């Protein structure tokens, strides 16, 4: 049965339609693989009973839809009714939502089968999965000649590891500053963050609301397109949800780059850039050129300010969003002996949040506090406007941008103990997040050490089609078949 887990999502769809195997067989093959790979710690909760019940309903014809019978993993940031949802945090340990997030409701409407909840950095704050309260996720990949365990990236590290290790056909991820794209690059899979507003945020635990976007992670660009169409759509329950039609991206995919202009942002060629990353980028440029694209040099002058802008805006929004964890309505409560309600708040939050989350809440509290608001927060919002304007001007000269996804391949646990060193890993992904643009990572090659490297494509607002087409062109040219 193990061969079933090696199929792409599109192949599973075809195989189910042709009755080559049943949805129950497909779900069971994945459940078996999950049981055999628990050392990766990719799933916080496995839901075999739910999965088999859903699969059975597909087999008997009572559940249908474009994703009928497709076994998916769900990042633990999405509320799934009746299944523990923790955002990777102790403060939500045991929280069982009585409602369904809009994104997972869309996937259920389309017939998907849920295998379980995927591990992640606590409240999506991290780039290595080391901040999860449920233990780190281990990448299924190892460097050549080394037995050292590597990070799967983050924050959607459980999603990345599970898709790469064939523990699900595809997974939901969320991306605030690169949390879909960076882990996808680290484990050799594809992942796309749509334009801000495409996917509803309702029922997805909030980190930084002006940046948070859900998106799919899967082994092929086509698989991502299939999931993306299902996940997106207007939702009146999210005030920033876009009320526009969702294209059938998989049907529209051509991979053609003829007549397309591909922008190469000069500022992304950092001083001291890893030679392998630079070479891969050049290779990507050559591939798209060979496919008929015109290569254009563009400038995004405020790129170097994107990370510091992000590390004001995101913690500020997080400090506000995470104020809700007060030990009153849900989550865990700690009451010091004889303590009043204020002592309860402070003790609950001290015990419930991990170090990185506390650090970000405190940074956010500080930059929003009286006397510092304008110097930090307002200034960051203004620089954010300039970063968005840079992109708008670049897109007057090109249709998509091509960049590396991350400045290095996956690193070892503990390699970035300094918070700033960890933050810098998102240098290529954060700018597009600040501008709300669609962006994806596609596996494009291996490092000399045998680890996956990804290329990033950034598109105009709402041009997921252009992003996916360029992604498919890279995927075809790269012919990436390596697996852990």
């Amino acid at each position, binding site marked *: 049965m193990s061969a079933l887990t090696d199929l792409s999502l599109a192949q599973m769809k075809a195989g189910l339609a042709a009755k080559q195997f049943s949805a129950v067989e497909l779900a069971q093959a994945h459940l078996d693989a999950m049981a055999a790979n628990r050392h990766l710690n990719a799933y916080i909760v496995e839901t075999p009973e739910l999965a088999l019940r859903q699969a059975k309903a597909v087999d008997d014809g009572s559940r249908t839809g474009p994703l009928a019978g497709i076994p998916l993993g769900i990042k633990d940031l999405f509320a799934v009714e009746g299944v523990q949802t923790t955002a990777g945090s102790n403060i939500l340990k045991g*929280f*069982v*939502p*009585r*409602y369904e997030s809009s994104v997972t409701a869309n996937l259920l409407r389309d017939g998907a089968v849920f295998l379980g909840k995927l591990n992640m950095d606590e409240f999506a704050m991290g780039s290595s999965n080391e901040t999860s309260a449920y233990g780190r996720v281990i990448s299924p990949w190892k460097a050549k000649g080394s037995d050292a365990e590597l990070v799967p990236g983050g924050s959607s590290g459980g999603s990345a590891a599970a898709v790469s290790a064939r523990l699900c056909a595809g997974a939901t991820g969320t991306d605030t500053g690169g949390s879909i794209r960076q882990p996808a690059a680290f484990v050799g899979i594809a992942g796309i963050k749509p334009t801000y*507003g495409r996917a509803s945020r309702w029922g997805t635990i909030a980190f930084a609301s*002006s940046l948070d976007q859900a998106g799919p992670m899967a082994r092929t660009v086509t698989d991502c397109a299939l999931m993306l169409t299902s996940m997106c759509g207007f939702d009146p329950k999210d*005030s920033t949800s*876009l*009320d526009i039609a969702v294209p059938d991206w998989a049907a529209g995919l051509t991979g053609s780059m003829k007549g397309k202009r591909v922008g190469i942002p000069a500022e992304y060629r950092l001083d001291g850039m890893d030679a392998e990353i630079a070479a891969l980028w050049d290779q990507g440029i050559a591939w798209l050129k060979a496919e008929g694209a015109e290569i254009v040099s563009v400038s995004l002058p405020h790129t170097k*300010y994107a990370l*510091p*802008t992000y*590390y*004001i805006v995101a913690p500020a929004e997080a*400090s506000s969003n995470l*104020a809700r964890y*007060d030990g*009153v*309505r*849900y*989550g*865990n*409560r700690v*009451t010091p002996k004889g303590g*009043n*309600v*204020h*002592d*309860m*708040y*402070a003790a609950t*939050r*001290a015990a419930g*949040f991990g170090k990185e989350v*506390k*650090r970000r*809440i*405190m*940074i956010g*509290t*500080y*930059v929003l*506090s009286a006397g*510092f608001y304008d*110097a*930090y927060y*307002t*200034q960051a*919002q*203004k*620089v*954010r*406007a*300039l970063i968005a304007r840079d992109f708008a001007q670049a897109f007057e000269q090109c249709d998509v941008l091509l960049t590396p996804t991350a400045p290095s391949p996956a690193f070892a646990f503990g390699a970035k103990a*300094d*918070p*700033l060193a960890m933050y810098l890993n998102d240098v290529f992904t954060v700018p597009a997040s600040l*501008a*709300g643009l669609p962006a994806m990572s596609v596996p494009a090659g291996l490092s000399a050490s045998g680890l996956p490297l990804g290329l990033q494509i950034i598109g105009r607002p709402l041009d997921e089609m252009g992003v996916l087409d360029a992604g498919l062109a890279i995927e075809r040219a790269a012919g990436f078949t390596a697996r852990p």
Partner: protein
Amino acid sequence: MSVDSQTVRKIARLARIAVTDDEVPGLVEQLNGILGWVEQLGEVDTKGVEPMASVMPGSLRWRADEVTDGGIQDKVLANAPDAASGFFAVPKVIE
């Protein structure tokens, strides 16, 4: 601008996070590291630039003023650490 231990305690109080004396020096160092780094934004000329609160163009949508939810007290209270008589319960609040 840099923070000292008194400021860190004040931020922690505002954020409703209890910190121990042992934690303060480390937090002072980490917060100063991050704040020192983000301060480079001060060098960007932003005269005449409107702060960007959202990438969405235009203003937020209004919805009809209709009751669309409610009557689910059991569901709302289901995850409460403490509930009594149909309410959330907290330690006594007497000033």
